């Protein structure tokens, strides 16, 4: 459930098909994922999951697996 919501947010912000997002997806292989869209992604994830992402994590969540880890941690805590 969380995974599909993350994918939906990523797809919407980065303007890529949801089904194209997988374990390998990162800012290295998604062209639209630049520093501006990164900010939008962090804000959109915070909005979607109603969480506050820590500064360090906000800078580092540059791939789908990292986002999943951070969001899950926040939801569990």
């Amino acid at each position, binding site marked *: 459930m969380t995974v599909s919501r993350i994918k939906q947010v990523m797809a919407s*912000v980065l303007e890529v098909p949801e089904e194209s997002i997988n374990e390998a997806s990162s800012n290295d292989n998604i062209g*639209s994922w630049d520093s*501006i869209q990164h900010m939008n992604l962090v804000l959109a994830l915070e909005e979607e999951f109603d969480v506050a992402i820590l500064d360090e994590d906000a800078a580092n969540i540059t791939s789908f697996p990292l986002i999943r880890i951070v969001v899950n941690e926040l939801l569990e805590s």
Partner: protein
Amino acid sequence: MNKDELLNSTLKNDRASFSELKKALKVIDGSEFEFGYSLGVSSNVTLNGFDVYLKKQGYISEVNADVQMGGYDDLQGDFDSFKSNGIQNVLVLLNFDNLLPSFESQVEHLDDEFIYAKIMDVKSSLLVALSGGDVFQSITITDFHLSFVGSNELRVKEVLGRFNVMLRECADQFDNVSLLSLSAVVADVGRYNAIDSRFYFMSKAPYKRLLLDHLARRLTSASRQFGARVYKAVVFDCDNTLWGGVVGEDLLGGIALNPYDYPGNIFWRIQQEILSLIERDVIICLCSKNNPEDVLEVLEEHPHCLLSNENIVAKKVNWSSKVDNILALSEELNIGLDSMVFVDDSSFECESVKARLPSVNTIQVPKNISEYISVFDTIKDLFPYVSSRNSDLSKTQQYKIRELSEKQRMNFSSQEEYLESLEIKALLTFNESSGKARISELSQKSNQFNLTTKRYTSLEVGKLIDSSTAVVAAVDVTDKFGGCGLTGAVIGRINGSVFSVDAFFMSCRVIARSIEFSIWPEILKRAVELGAKRIHASYYPTSKNMQVADFYDRLGFVEVHENSDGARKYEQEIKQLELIKIDWIEVEISDC
């Protein structure tokens, strides 16, 4: 959902999320709005999402706003690109704290001479851009504001004030330039809601979305609904609008208009604001259900009434409906209903005018009277500021004298001349191991100014630095205001007589000053010293580095091959190269 529903449910809904907003904007096809408006936004910080809010405000005003966001801190470059793209209106937003790294925190330790030099620096770069901006219909500059609260707040405010005076002086020199109070918008939403320190320090994006949304509203209103509206007149009710209370009941002595008492002080202040509207050539009318002689008595005899009968161009003081009276005023003054603003405290009157004369801009005096001041700010925004040239002579003379001395001091006719005044120095360091971590970091982070997008780890950079056949050139940039740190690197290898450039990347902070070109003669000199006779260089396209696709061509290399994917290869005798000359940058080689 159809477009009208989207407009009402999402665009006009303050609680709609950013992603909902973006989705709605995509659905609403701008093409059906006949009136177009183009706006270029130039800033020294990242204004992420601002274009979305501007487009939203556009659609709400039934205007298709074509918004072009400029690059990072590249005023002149932005102006050039806006011009070539046919943009007609420009917004310049300079963030005070980002004029120099954490400027607010530095201000306390800087002497007045340095501050003055920085003011002059910002002023001259603005003047160079504005002088070439006469093709634009309008240029709006936002004022400087405080971003953080520190122990030195008073000192920062004092310096901020001086920067803002400078902005006013710049604006006054051009007919198409006006100021917009961003500081008022920051104050309206509150600094905590306005400033995003996380993304400011991480990505130079200091504003939260709430602030950008409010700024877009303010700009829309100041541009008179993106130029779709030109307002000429304000029609005021009298009781509880120009003064507190009802003159017919409370009589002359009973109405509230005393500058020393609440709520009279609020109405007195509003009258001051109305006087400033009159200075802007706004037509002031009255429309009030009253006995005409009661209203006249206030205007002529109340000791604190600032407005006089002469200030009122036309008035309808009678017991007829306000709708009929506004129609009559429109006819009498020969101005359209859509160029009129109507201000009244009564919900009943406001609603009936809104319903029957929807093209009149109806504004209700707020129930909380203390909010009247900020509501009135939005009315003032509807009328363009008239520059001080129309004000009294002595002030004009003062400006003239100051203008002259400054022209002598800094009469830059070109961007080059201005750049020259910055005393830019590029300090080149070859194969110095202390820079390896920063070079690696830059290679990882630079996307736009990165010719090959090769990413290096610190270890890899370290190995190259130690190699006798590698050239690792680090670029440190300074100007008369201080250093920018290590902001670029060239990495190449010498293979026999060939110098192959593997990577060239720079931080976006320093481009647009031609540093990227200035360093090449020294780099080639070093390669020749190491035995190179030919140079090989490449550009590999990514989705983010289009801006440097022709960098080597502009530098003076001759392209030998271009692949179908856009990759370009350059191979040339070093001796035959004719590089572009950059006279205004001093390139030094560090000995360390």
